[in-house]
Protein backbone atom coordinates (compact mmCIF):
# COMPACT_ATOMS: atom_id res chain seq x y z
CA UNK A 1 0.00 0.00 0.00
CA UNK A 2 1.18 3.48 -0.86
CA UNK A 3 0.76 6.23 1.74
CA UNK A 4 0.58 9.87 0.72
CA UNK A 5 1.52 12.49 3.30
CA UNK A 6 0.99 16.21 2.89
CA UNK A 7 3.45 18.55 4.61
CA UNK A 8 3.43 22.32 4.90
CA UNK A 9 6.20 24.85 5.33
CA UNK A 10 5.21 27.19 8.15
CA UNK A 11 6.79 29.69 10.49
CA UNK A 12 8.80 27.80 13.15
CA UNK A 13 6.83 27.26 16.33
CA UNK A 14 9.59 28.87 18.37
CA UNK A 15 9.39 32.14 16.47
CA UNK A 16 7.28 34.94 17.83
CA UNK A 17 5.18 35.99 14.85
CA UNK A 18 5.02 39.69 14.08
CA UNK A 19 2.49 41.54 12.00
CA UNK A 20 3.82 43.56 9.07
CA UNK A 21 3.73 47.31 9.57
CA UNK A 22 1.21 47.74 6.72
CA UNK A 23 -1.11 45.14 8.34
CA UNK A 24 -1.24 42.99 5.22
CA UNK A 25 -0.05 39.84 6.94
CA UNK A 26 2.57 38.22 9.14
CA UNK A 27 6.14 39.28 8.52
CA UNK A 28 7.98 36.26 7.10
CA UNK A 29 11.17 37.97 5.95
CA UNK A 30 14.24 36.46 7.63
CA UNK A 31 12.04 34.32 9.82
CA UNK A 32 12.92 30.72 10.54
CA UNK A 33 10.60 28.31 8.78
CA UNK A 34 9.96 24.66 9.55
CA UNK A 35 7.67 21.74 8.87
CA UNK A 36 4.26 22.15 10.47
CA UNK A 37 4.41 20.03 13.67
CA UNK A 38 1.19 18.14 12.84
CA UNK A 39 2.67 17.26 9.45
CA UNK A 40 5.74 15.86 11.19
CA UNK A 41 3.43 13.57 13.11
CA UNK A 42 1.82 12.56 9.82
CA UNK A 43 5.22 11.72 8.30
CA UNK A 44 6.20 9.76 11.40
CA UNK A 45 3.00 7.70 11.26
CA UNK A 46 3.52 6.89 7.59
CA UNK A 47 7.14 5.89 8.18
CA UNK A 48 6.07 3.66 11.07
CA UNK A 49 3.48 2.00 8.84
CA UNK A 50 6.26 1.31 6.40
CA UNK A 51 8.56 -0.04 9.09
CA UNK A 52 5.77 -2.36 10.23
CA UNK A 53 5.46 -3.65 6.70
CA UNK A 54 1.97 -2.21 6.25
CA UNK A 55 2.96 0.50 3.81
CA UNK A 56 5.25 -0.22 0.88
CA UNK A 57 5.95 3.34 -0.20
CA UNK A 58 5.62 6.76 1.41
CA UNK A 59 5.14 9.72 -0.92
CA UNK A 60 5.30 13.19 0.55
CA UNK A 61 3.77 16.23 -1.11
CA UNK A 62 4.16 19.90 -0.32
CA UNK A 63 2.55 22.91 -1.92
CA UNK A 64 4.41 26.17 -1.72
CA UNK A 65 7.39 28.22 -2.84
CA UNK A 66 10.69 26.72 -3.97
CA UNK A 67 11.93 26.73 -0.38
CA UNK A 68 9.22 24.21 0.56
CA UNK A 69 11.60 21.63 -0.89
CA UNK A 70 13.51 21.90 2.39
CA UNK A 71 10.52 20.43 4.21
CA UNK A 72 10.16 17.71 1.58
CA UNK A 73 13.85 16.88 2.04
CA UNK A 74 13.29 16.69 5.78
CA UNK A 75 10.43 14.25 5.24
CA UNK A 76 12.63 12.19 2.91
CA UNK A 77 15.35 12.16 5.57
CA UNK A 78 12.78 10.92 8.07
CA UNK A 79 12.02 7.94 5.84
CA UNK A 80 9.67 8.96 3.03
CA UNK A 81 10.59 7.52 -0.36
CA UNK A 82 9.58 10.14 -2.86
CA UNK A 83 8.71 13.83 -2.89
CA UNK A 84 6.25 15.79 -4.97
CA UNK A 85 6.56 19.55 -4.92
CA UNK A 86 3.69 21.63 -6.23
CA UNK A 87 5.53 24.86 -6.73
CA UNK A 88 3.68 28.15 -6.38
CA UNK A 89 4.35 31.50 -4.78
CA UNK A 90 0.66 32.14 -4.28
CA UNK A 91 -0.62 31.83 -0.73
CA UNK A 92 -2.82 28.87 -1.49
CA UNK A 93 -6.10 28.62 0.41
CA UNK A 94 -7.41 25.42 1.96
CA UNK A 95 -9.84 24.60 -0.85
CA UNK A 96 -7.21 25.06 -3.54
CA UNK A 97 -4.79 22.95 -1.49
CA UNK A 98 -7.42 20.22 -1.28
CA UNK A 99 -7.96 20.38 -5.04
CA UNK A 100 -4.23 20.15 -5.71
CA UNK A 101 -3.95 17.24 -3.31
CA UNK A 102 -6.85 15.52 -5.04
CA UNK A 103 -4.98 15.79 -8.32
CA UNK A 104 -1.91 14.25 -6.67
CA UNK A 105 -4.09 11.50 -5.16
CA UNK A 106 -5.46 10.67 -8.60
CA UNK A 107 -1.97 10.39 -9.96
CA UNK A 108 -0.36 8.50 -7.09
CA UNK A 109 -3.35 6.33 -6.11
CA UNK A 110 -2.43 5.98 -2.43
CA UNK A 111 -4.31 3.60 -0.13
CA UNK A 112 -4.07 6.02 2.75
CA UNK A 113 -3.62 9.79 2.91
CA UNK A 114 -2.32 11.32 6.14
CA UNK A 115 -2.37 15.04 6.86
CA UNK A 116 -1.92 17.19 9.92
CA UNK A 117 -5.21 18.21 11.50
CA UNK A 118 -4.26 21.84 10.91
CA UNK A 119 -1.23 23.99 10.23
CA UNK A 120 0.02 26.23 12.98
CA UNK A 121 0.18 29.33 10.79
CA UNK A 122 -3.46 29.79 9.79
CA UNK A 123 -5.07 27.10 11.98
CA UNK A 124 -7.80 26.46 9.41
CA UNK A 125 -8.39 22.78 10.13
CA UNK A 126 -10.07 22.34 6.76
CA UNK A 127 -7.80 20.73 4.21
CA UNK A 128 -8.20 17.08 5.23
CA UNK A 129 -11.95 17.39 5.41
CA UNK A 130 -12.21 19.14 2.04
CA UNK A 131 -9.92 16.58 0.44
CA UNK A 132 -12.12 13.76 1.76
CA UNK A 133 -15.19 15.42 0.30
CA UNK A 134 -13.54 16.03 -3.08
CA UNK A 135 -12.22 12.47 -3.30
CA UNK A 136 -15.35 10.87 -1.90
CA UNK A 137 -13.22 8.99 0.65
CA UNK A 138 -13.98 8.36 4.28
CA UNK A 139 -12.25 10.62 6.79
CA UNK A 140 -11.05 10.27 10.37
CA UNK A 141 -9.82 13.54 11.81
CA UNK A 142 -7.77 14.18 15.02
CA UNK A 143 -6.30 10.68 15.09
CA UNK A 144 -4.53 9.46 18.21
CA UNK A 145 -4.15 5.88 17.00
CA UNK A 146 -4.12 4.38 13.51
CA UNK A 147 -4.33 0.66 12.78
CA UNK A 148 -4.50 -0.66 9.25
CA UNK A 149 -5.83 -4.18 8.72
CA UNK A 150 -6.71 -5.54 5.32
CA UNK A 151 -8.74 -3.01 3.38
CA UNK A 152 -9.75 -1.13 6.51
CA UNK A 153 -8.20 1.42 8.79
CA UNK A 154 -9.27 1.76 12.38
CA UNK A 155 -8.71 5.19 13.83
CA UNK A 156 -9.07 6.36 17.40
CA UNK A 157 -10.07 10.01 17.39
CA UNK A 158 -9.74 12.59 20.11
CA UNK A 159 -13.14 14.20 20.47
CA UNK A 160 -14.66 16.40 23.14
CA UNK A 161 -15.43 14.18 26.07
CA UNK A 162 -13.23 11.22 25.15
CA UNK A 163 -12.05 8.90 22.44
CA UNK A 164 -14.05 7.63 19.54
CA UNK A 165 -12.94 4.76 17.36
CA UNK A 166 -14.05 4.60 13.75
CA UNK A 167 -13.35 2.09 10.99
CA UNK A 168 -12.95 3.32 7.42
CA UNK A 169 -12.69 1.54 4.13
CA UNK A 170 -9.47 2.27 2.26
CA UNK A 171 -8.55 4.50 0.56
CA UNK A 172 -9.19 6.95 3.35
CA UNK A 173 -8.08 10.27 4.81
CA UNK A 174 -6.61 10.57 8.29
CA UNK A 175 -5.62 13.80 10.02
CA UNK A 176 -3.24 13.68 12.96
CA UNK A 177 -3.58 15.01 16.47
CA UNK A 178 -0.68 15.71 18.82
CA UNK A 179 -0.74 12.44 20.71
CA UNK A 180 -0.62 10.12 17.73
CA UNK A 181 3.14 9.67 18.04
CA UNK A 182 6.38 11.38 18.96
CA UNK A 183 8.20 12.19 15.73
CA UNK A 184 11.81 11.11 15.40
CA UNK A 185 14.62 13.34 14.21
CA UNK A 186 16.47 12.46 11.04
CA UNK A 187 19.87 10.85 11.53
CA UNK A 188 22.72 12.57 9.72
CA UNK A 189 23.36 9.67 7.32
CA UNK A 190 19.66 9.68 6.43
CA UNK A 191 19.82 13.42 5.72
CA UNK A 192 22.61 12.71 3.24
CA UNK A 193 20.77 9.75 1.67
CA UNK A 194 17.64 11.86 1.27
CA UNK A 195 19.44 14.05 -1.24
CA UNK A 196 19.44 11.13 -3.67
CA UNK A 197 15.74 10.35 -3.32
CA UNK A 198 13.45 11.44 -6.17
CA UNK A 199 11.74 14.80 -5.92
CA UNK A 200 9.33 15.73 -8.67
CA UNK A 201 8.19 19.31 -9.26
CA UNK A 202 4.87 20.25 -10.84
CA UNK A 203 2.89 23.47 -11.07
CA UNK A 204 -0.76 24.04 -10.13
CA UNK A 205 -1.41 24.55 -13.87
CA UNK A 206 0.07 21.09 -14.61
CA UNK A 207 -2.51 19.72 -12.19
CA UNK A 208 -5.27 21.81 -13.73
CA UNK A 209 -6.06 23.74 -10.59
CA UNK A 210 -6.69 27.46 -10.32
CA UNK A 211 -5.13 28.66 -7.08
CA UNK A 212 -6.23 32.27 -7.27
CA UNK A 213 -7.32 33.27 -3.75
CA UNK A 214 -11.05 33.62 -3.19
CA UNK A 215 -10.70 35.41 0.10
CA UNK A 216 -9.49 38.94 0.54
CA UNK A 217 -7.56 39.76 3.69
CA UNK A 218 -8.68 43.16 4.89
CA UNK A 219 -6.14 43.53 7.62
CA UNK A 220 -4.02 41.59 10.06
CA UNK A 221 -3.48 42.91 13.58
CA UNK A 222 -1.71 41.76 16.71
CA UNK A 223 -3.99 40.14 19.28
CA UNK A 224 -5.05 42.60 21.97
CA UNK A 225 -2.50 42.75 24.78
CA UNK A 226 -3.68 41.03 27.93
CA UNK A 227 -3.69 43.38 30.86
CA UNK A 228 -2.02 42.24 34.04
CA UNK A 229 -4.05 40.09 36.40
CA UNK A 230 -4.79 40.77 40.04
CA UNK A 231 -4.31 38.69 43.17
CA UNK A 232 -7.38 37.92 45.25
CA UNK A 233 -7.17 37.46 48.99
CA UNK A 234 -9.72 34.69 49.40
CA UNK A 235 -11.98 32.25 47.61
CA UNK A 236 -14.94 34.39 48.63
CA UNK A 237 -13.46 37.41 46.88
CA UNK A 238 -12.77 35.32 43.78
CA UNK A 239 -16.32 34.00 43.63
CA UNK A 240 -17.74 37.46 44.16
CA UNK A 241 -15.59 38.89 41.36
CA UNK A 242 -16.54 36.10 39.00
CA UNK A 243 -20.18 36.71 39.78
CA UNK A 244 -20.38 40.47 39.91
CA UNK A 245 -17.52 41.78 37.79
CA UNK A 246 -16.78 39.11 35.22
CA UNK A 247 -20.37 37.89 35.30
CA UNK A 248 -19.33 34.38 34.30
CA UNK A 249 -21.03 32.49 37.11
Amino acid at each position, binding site marked *: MKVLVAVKRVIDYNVKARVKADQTGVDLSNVKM*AMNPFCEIAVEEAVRLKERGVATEVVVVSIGPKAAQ*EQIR*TALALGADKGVHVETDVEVEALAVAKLLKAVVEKEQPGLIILGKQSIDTDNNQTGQMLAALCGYGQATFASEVTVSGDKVEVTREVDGGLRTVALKLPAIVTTDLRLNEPR*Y*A*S*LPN*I*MKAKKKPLETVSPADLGVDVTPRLKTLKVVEPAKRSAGIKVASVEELVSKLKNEAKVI
Partner: protein
Amino acid sequence: MHPFNDTHEQIRLTVRRFVEKHVLPYIREWEEAGEFPREIYQLAGDAGILGIGYDEKWGGIGAGDVLMKVAASEELMRSTSGGLVASLGSLDIALPPVAKWASPALKKTVVPAVLRGEKIAALAITEPSGGSDVASLKTRARKEGDHYVVNGSKTFITSGTRADYYTVAVRTGNEGHGGISLLMIERGTPGFTVGRKLQKMGWWCSDTAELFFQDCKVPASHLIGVENAGFIAIMSNFQMERLSLAIMAYMTAQLAYEEALRYVKEREAFGRKIAGFQVIRHKLVDMATRINIARQYTLTVAEKMQTKQNCVTEVSMAKNFVTETADFVTYEAVQIFGGMGYMRESVVERLFRDARILSIGGGTTEIMKEIIARQLGL
Protein backbone atom coordinates in the same frame (compact mmCIF):
# COMPACT_ATOMS: atom_id res chain seq x y z
CA MET B 1 24.92 36.64 6.41
CA HIS B 2 25.96 33.12 7.17
CA PRO B 3 27.77 30.48 5.17
CA PHE B 4 25.54 27.50 5.93
CA ASN B 5 23.76 25.51 3.23
CA ASP B 6 20.48 23.54 3.36
CA THR B 7 22.19 20.36 4.47
CA HIS B 8 23.84 22.18 7.35
CA GLU B 9 20.45 23.55 8.35
CA GLN B 10 18.89 20.08 8.30
CA ILE B 11 21.71 18.78 10.44
CA ARG B 12 21.26 21.70 12.78
CA LEU B 13 17.61 20.71 13.16
CA THR B 14 18.52 17.14 14.05
CA VAL B 15 21.12 18.19 16.60
CA ARG B 16 18.66 20.66 18.11
CA ARG B 17 16.07 17.91 18.48
CA PHE B 18 18.67 15.61 19.95
CA VAL B 19 19.56 18.22 22.57
CA GLU B 20 15.91 19.05 23.32
CA LYS B 21 14.96 15.42 23.71
CA HIS B 22 17.94 13.71 25.30
CA VAL B 23 19.86 16.44 27.09
CA LEU B 24 17.97 19.57 28.14
CA PRO B 25 15.46 17.88 30.45
CA TYR B 26 18.30 16.33 32.48
CA ILE B 27 21.29 18.62 32.15
CA ARG B 28 20.92 20.36 35.50
CA GLU B 29 20.83 17.00 37.24
CA TRP B 30 23.91 15.78 35.36
CA GLU B 31 25.84 18.94 36.10
CA GLU B 32 25.14 18.57 39.81
CA ALA B 33 25.99 14.85 39.69
CA GLY B 34 29.26 15.60 37.89
CA GLU B 35 28.50 13.08 35.17
CA PHE B 36 26.18 12.38 32.26
CA PRO B 37 25.06 8.89 31.24
CA ARG B 38 27.37 7.01 28.93
CA GLU B 39 24.32 6.22 26.84
CA ILE B 40 24.45 9.76 25.45
CA TYR B 41 27.52 8.83 23.39
CA GLN B 42 25.56 5.96 21.90
CA LEU B 43 22.54 8.14 21.15
CA ALA B 44 24.74 10.79 19.54
CA GLY B 45 26.47 8.05 17.58
CA ASP B 46 23.15 6.65 16.38
CA ALA B 47 22.08 10.10 15.22
CA GLY B 48 25.34 10.39 13.28
CA ILE B 49 26.44 13.45 15.23
CA LEU B 50 29.74 11.98 16.37
CA GLY B 51 30.68 11.08 12.80
CA ILE B 52 30.81 14.62 11.46
CA GLY B 53 34.08 15.30 9.70
CA TYR B 54 35.10 11.66 9.26
CA ASP B 55 35.21 9.49 6.18
CA GLU B 56 32.04 7.63 5.28
CA LYS B 57 33.91 4.35 5.17
CA TRP B 58 34.32 4.61 8.94
CA GLY B 59 30.70 5.58 9.47
CA GLY B 60 31.46 9.27 9.25
CA ILE B 61 29.77 12.08 7.40
CA GLY B 62 30.80 15.35 5.80
CA ALA B 63 34.55 14.75 5.77
CA GLY B 64 36.25 18.10 5.19
CA ASP B 65 33.02 20.03 5.77
CA VAL B 66 34.16 22.30 8.58
CA LEU B 67 30.91 24.28 8.49
CA MET B 68 28.85 21.16 9.13
CA LYS B 69 30.86 20.73 12.29
CA VAL B 70 30.26 24.37 13.22
CA ALA B 71 26.50 24.06 12.76
CA ALA B 72 26.36 20.91 14.89
CA SER B 73 28.61 22.38 17.60
CA GLU B 74 26.49 25.51 17.86
CA GLU B 75 23.41 23.40 18.43
CA LEU B 76 25.11 21.08 20.93
CA MET B 77 26.07 24.13 22.95
CA ARG B 78 22.35 24.88 23.29
CA SER B 79 22.52 22.15 25.95
CA THR B 80 23.88 25.03 28.11
CA SER B 81 26.68 22.73 29.27
CA GLY B 82 30.20 23.17 27.97
CA GLY B 83 31.12 20.11 30.00
CA LEU B 84 28.77 17.88 28.08
CA VAL B 85 30.05 19.25 24.79
CA ALA B 86 33.68 18.83 25.86
CA SER B 87 33.31 15.20 26.93
CA LEU B 88 31.00 14.18 24.12
CA GLY B 89 33.43 15.91 21.78
CA SER B 90 36.69 14.53 23.17
CA LEU B 91 36.84 12.23 20.16
CA ASP B 92 37.37 15.29 18.00
CA ILE B 93 40.74 15.94 19.56
CA ALA B 94 41.66 12.27 20.07
CA LEU B 95 40.56 10.66 16.85
CA PRO B 96 41.84 12.79 13.95
CA PRO B 97 45.46 11.63 14.32
CA VAL B 98 44.26 8.02 14.45
CA ALA B 99 42.02 8.45 11.41
CA LYS B 100 44.85 10.09 9.50
CA TRP B 101 48.00 8.30 10.51
CA ALA B 102 47.36 5.06 12.43
CA SER B 103 47.88 1.63 10.84
CA PRO B 104 44.90 0.33 8.84
CA ALA B 105 44.22 -2.31 11.50
CA LEU B 106 44.21 0.23 14.32
CA LYS B 107 41.98 2.60 12.39
CA LYS B 108 39.53 -0.20 11.78
CA THR B 109 39.31 -1.15 15.45
CA VAL B 110 39.18 2.33 16.88
CA VAL B 111 37.50 4.80 14.52
CA PRO B 112 34.13 3.18 13.71
CA ALA B 113 33.50 2.10 17.32
CA VAL B 114 34.14 5.63 18.58
CA LEU B 115 31.98 7.22 15.87
CA ARG B 116 29.15 4.85 16.79
CA GLY B 117 29.45 6.04 20.38
CA GLU B 118 30.27 2.57 21.67
CA LYS B 119 33.77 3.55 22.72
CA ILE B 120 35.11 6.80 24.09
CA ALA B 121 38.33 8.44 22.92
CA ALA B 122 40.52 10.93 24.81
CA LEU B 123 43.62 12.96 23.99
CA ALA B 124 46.43 13.04 26.53
CA ILE B 125 49.12 15.66 26.03
CA THR B 126 49.24 17.71 29.23
CA GLU B 127 51.43 16.48 32.10
CA PRO B 128 51.63 17.52 35.75
CA SER B 129 54.86 19.33 34.90
CA GLY B 130 53.27 21.40 32.16
CA GLY B 131 50.84 21.75 29.29
CA SER B 132 51.89 24.83 27.37
CA ASP B 133 55.39 23.63 26.66
CA VAL B 134 54.44 20.52 24.72
CA ALA B 135 57.97 20.11 23.39
CA SER B 136 59.23 19.43 26.91
CA LEU B 137 56.87 16.61 27.79
CA LYS B 138 58.41 13.88 29.92
CA THR B 139 56.33 10.72 29.55
CA ARG B 140 58.82 8.31 28.05
CA ALA B 141 58.19 5.42 25.67
CA ARG B 142 61.18 3.10 25.29
CA LYS B 143 61.13 0.70 22.35
CA GLU B 144 61.69 -2.93 23.40
CA GLY B 145 61.26 -5.42 20.59
CA ASP B 146 57.75 -5.12 19.26
CA HIS B 147 56.59 -2.99 22.19
CA TYR B 148 56.97 0.42 23.71
CA VAL B 149 57.38 0.57 27.47
CA VAL B 150 55.72 3.73 28.71
CA ASN B 151 56.49 5.54 31.98
CA GLY B 152 55.09 8.86 33.13
CA SER B 153 51.81 10.60 33.79
CA LYS B 154 49.23 12.89 32.23
CA THR B 155 46.71 15.21 33.81
CA PHE B 156 43.57 17.27 33.15
CA ILE B 157 42.50 14.73 30.53
CA THR B 158 38.95 15.26 29.27
CA SER B 159 36.90 12.02 29.23
CA GLY B 160 39.88 10.62 31.13
CA THR B 161 37.96 8.48 33.60
CA ARG B 162 35.70 6.82 31.05
CA ALA B 163 37.68 6.62 27.82
CA ASP B 164 38.51 3.33 26.13
CA TYR B 165 41.15 4.70 23.77
CA TYR B 166 43.78 7.28 24.67
CA THR B 167 45.84 9.13 22.09
CA VAL B 168 48.92 9.77 24.20
CA ALA B 169 51.87 12.05 23.48
CA VAL B 170 55.13 10.39 24.55
CA ARG B 171 58.83 10.97 24.23
CA THR B 172 60.39 8.34 22.00
CA GLY B 173 63.49 10.29 21.06
CA ASN B 174 65.73 13.09 22.22
CA GLU B 175 64.77 16.20 24.16
CA GLY B 176 62.72 18.85 22.37
CA HIS B 177 59.99 18.70 19.80
CA GLY B 178 61.85 16.30 17.55
CA GLY B 179 61.53 13.44 20.02
CA ILE B 180 57.80 13.20 20.44
CA SER B 181 55.41 10.53 19.14
CA LEU B 182 51.74 9.65 19.49
CA LEU B 183 50.72 6.25 20.84
CA MET B 184 47.28 4.69 21.09
CA ILE B 185 46.95 3.23 24.57
CA GLU B 186 43.89 1.19 25.47
CA ARG B 187 42.13 1.19 28.80
CA GLY B 188 43.08 -1.94 30.68
CA THR B 189 46.61 -2.15 29.28
CA PRO B 190 48.76 -3.52 32.15
CA GLY B 191 50.72 -0.70 33.77
CA PHE B 192 48.13 1.94 32.84
CA THR B 193 45.94 3.29 35.62
CA VAL B 194 43.40 6.09 35.68
CA GLY B 195 43.51 8.33 38.73
CA ARG B 196 40.71 10.09 40.51
CA LYS B 197 38.12 12.23 38.81
CA LEU B 198 39.31 15.81 39.24
CA GLN B 199 36.98 18.40 40.76
CA LYS B 200 36.70 21.55 38.71
CA MET B 201 35.47 25.14 38.69
CA GLY B 202 33.26 24.44 35.68
CA TRP B 203 32.50 21.77 33.09
CA TRP B 204 31.07 19.76 35.97
CA CYS B 205 29.46 16.97 34.02
CA SER B 206 32.66 16.39 32.07
CA ASP B 207 35.03 13.83 33.58
CA THR B 208 38.61 15.00 33.81
CA ALA B 209 41.36 12.68 35.02
CA GLU B 210 44.98 11.96 35.73
CA LEU B 211 46.58 9.03 33.96
CA PHE B 212 49.55 6.99 35.17
CA PHE B 213 51.84 4.78 33.16
CA GLN B 214 54.22 2.43 34.92
CA ASP B 215 56.16 0.06 32.70
CA CYS B 216 53.09 0.03 30.53
CA LYS B 217 53.65 -2.25 27.52
CA VAL B 218 52.06 -0.91 24.35
CA PRO B 219 52.30 -2.80 21.04
CA ALA B 220 54.59 -1.00 18.60
CA SER B 221 51.77 -1.24 16.06
CA HIS B 222 49.92 1.32 18.19
CA LEU B 223 52.28 4.05 17.07
CA ILE B 224 50.26 6.77 15.33
CA GLY B 225 52.17 8.13 12.37
CA VAL B 226 55.92 8.29 12.12
CA GLU B 227 58.13 7.92 15.20
CA ASN B 228 59.39 11.26 16.52
CA ALA B 229 57.09 13.20 14.18
CA GLY B 230 54.36 13.58 16.80
CA PHE B 231 54.88 17.26 17.54
CA ILE B 232 53.72 18.45 14.16
CA ALA B 233 50.73 16.09 14.35
CA ILE B 234 49.80 17.55 17.74
CA MET B 235 50.12 21.11 16.48
CA SER B 236 48.03 20.51 13.36
CA ASN B 237 45.41 18.79 15.53
CA PHE B 238 45.20 21.90 17.70
CA GLN B 239 43.75 23.98 14.85
CA MET B 240 40.38 22.29 14.86
CA GLU B 241 40.32 22.15 18.66
CA ARG B 242 40.89 25.89 18.84
CA LEU B 243 38.12 26.53 16.34
CA SER B 244 35.81 24.33 18.45
CA LEU B 245 36.74 26.23 21.59
CA ALA B 246 35.98 29.51 19.83
CA ILE B 247 32.55 28.16 18.83
CA MET B 248 31.94 27.04 22.41
CA ALA B 249 32.96 30.48 23.58
CA TYR B 250 30.62 32.53 21.40
CA MET B 251 27.78 30.13 22.08
CA THR B 252 28.40 30.39 25.83
CA ALA B 253 28.21 34.15 25.39
CA GLN B 254 25.15 33.91 23.17
CA LEU B 255 23.25 31.81 25.72
CA ALA B 256 24.18 34.17 28.53
CA TYR B 257 23.05 37.10 26.41
CA GLU B 258 19.72 35.45 25.61
CA GLU B 259 19.12 34.70 29.28
CA ALA B 260 19.91 38.31 30.20
CA LEU B 261 17.74 39.71 27.42
CA ARG B 262 14.78 37.75 28.74
CA TYR B 263 15.45 38.67 32.35
CA VAL B 264 15.68 42.43 31.86
CA LYS B 265 12.20 42.45 30.39
CA GLU B 266 10.78 40.67 33.43
CA ARG B 267 12.72 41.94 36.39
CA GLU B 268 11.62 45.18 38.00
CA ALA B 269 13.50 47.63 40.20
CA PHE B 270 12.54 51.12 41.32
CA GLY B 271 9.14 50.60 39.80
CA ARG B 272 10.14 49.69 36.29
CA LYS B 273 11.59 46.91 34.20
CA ILE B 274 15.35 46.92 34.51
CA ALA B 275 15.47 47.04 30.69
CA GLY B 276 14.27 50.59 31.18
CA PHE B 277 17.64 51.64 32.62
CA GLN B 278 19.97 52.90 29.96
CA VAL B 279 22.94 51.36 31.76
CA ILE B 280 21.37 47.93 31.42
CA ARG B 281 20.36 48.47 27.81
CA HIS B 282 23.87 49.52 26.92
CA LYS B 283 25.29 46.46 28.62
CA LEU B 284 23.10 44.29 26.41
CA VAL B 285 24.13 46.28 23.36
CA ASP B 286 27.81 45.76 24.16
CA MET B 287 27.22 42.06 24.72
CA ALA B 288 25.33 41.65 21.45
CA THR B 289 27.91 43.67 19.52
CA ARG B 290 30.86 41.63 20.70
CA ILE B 291 29.06 38.32 20.20
CA ASN B 292 28.16 39.26 16.64
CA ILE B 293 31.70 40.20 15.77
CA ALA B 294 33.09 37.14 17.53
CA ARG B 295 30.79 34.77 15.68
CA GLN B 296 31.25 36.41 12.29
CA TYR B 297 35.01 36.31 12.59
CA THR B 298 34.97 32.69 13.72
CA LEU B 299 32.73 31.74 10.80
CA THR B 300 35.12 33.47 8.42
CA VAL B 301 37.98 31.43 9.86
CA ALA B 302 35.90 28.26 9.57
CA GLU B 303 35.21 29.01 5.91
CA LYS B 304 38.88 29.52 5.31
CA MET B 305 39.71 26.25 7.07
CA GLN B 306 37.18 24.55 4.84
CA THR B 307 39.32 25.50 1.85
CA LYS B 308 42.30 23.90 3.62
CA GLN B 309 44.25 27.14 3.80
CA ASN B 310 46.68 27.75 6.61
CA CYS B 311 44.91 29.78 9.29
CA VAL B 312 47.11 29.31 12.33
CA THR B 313 47.13 33.05 12.96
CA GLU B 314 43.41 33.54 12.43
CA VAL B 315 42.38 30.55 14.55
CA SER B 316 44.58 31.75 17.38
CA MET B 317 43.17 35.27 17.07
CA ALA B 318 39.63 33.90 17.03
CA LYS B 319 40.23 31.83 20.13
CA ASN B 320 41.61 34.79 22.04
CA PHE B 321 39.03 37.32 20.92
CA VAL B 322 36.06 35.04 21.40
CA THR B 323 37.05 33.59 24.77
CA GLU B 324 37.58 37.12 26.05
CA THR B 325 34.13 37.96 24.70
CA ALA B 326 32.68 34.98 26.57
CA ASP B 327 34.32 36.11 29.81
CA PHE B 328 32.99 39.64 29.34
CA VAL B 329 29.49 38.61 28.37
CA THR B 330 29.01 35.95 31.04
CA TYR B 331 30.32 38.36 33.67
CA GLU B 332 27.82 41.01 32.61
CA ALA B 333 25.00 38.47 32.42
CA VAL B 334 25.61 37.46 36.03
CA GLN B 335 25.71 41.14 36.95
CA ILE B 336 22.39 41.77 35.22
CA PHE B 337 20.82 38.86 37.07
CA GLY B 338 21.96 40.33 40.37
CA GLY B 339 21.85 37.88 43.29
CA MET B 340 19.97 35.41 41.16
CA GLY B 341 22.99 35.32 38.85
CA TYR B 342 25.01 33.88 41.70
CA MET B 343 22.52 31.08 42.33
CA ARG B 344 23.08 27.64 40.92
CA GLU B 345 19.50 27.57 39.67
CA SER B 346 20.25 30.19 37.02
CA VAL B 347 21.93 29.13 33.82
CA VAL B 348 24.16 32.22 33.69
CA GLU B 349 25.91 31.02 36.84
CA ARG B 350 27.04 27.89 35.02
CA LEU B 351 27.90 29.75 31.83
CA PHE B 352 30.09 32.13 33.81
CA ARG B 353 32.06 29.27 35.38
CA ASP B 354 32.20 27.29 32.16
CA ALA B 355 33.57 30.22 30.18
CA ARG B 356 36.74 30.36 32.27
CA ILE B 357 38.38 27.20 30.90
CA LEU B 358 38.03 28.32 27.30
CA SER B 359 40.98 30.70 27.44
CA ILE B 360 43.13 28.02 29.11
CA GLY B 361 42.40 24.71 27.39
CA GLY B 362 43.65 23.92 23.90
CA GLY B 363 46.47 26.44 24.38
CA THR B 364 46.29 29.41 26.72
CA THR B 365 45.68 32.99 25.63
CA GLU B 366 49.36 33.70 26.26
CA ILE B 367 50.45 30.79 24.09
CA MET B 368 48.05 31.94 21.34
CA LYS B 369 49.74 35.34 21.51
CA GLU B 370 53.17 33.75 21.22
CA ILE B 371 51.99 31.89 18.12
CA ILE B 372 50.49 35.03 16.60
CA ALA B 373 53.62 37.07 17.38
CA ARG B 374 55.76 34.51 15.57
CA GLN B 375 53.42 34.54 12.57
CA LEU B 376 53.62 38.32 12.53
CA GLY B 377 57.36 38.02 12.19
CA LEU B 378 58.14 39.27 15.68
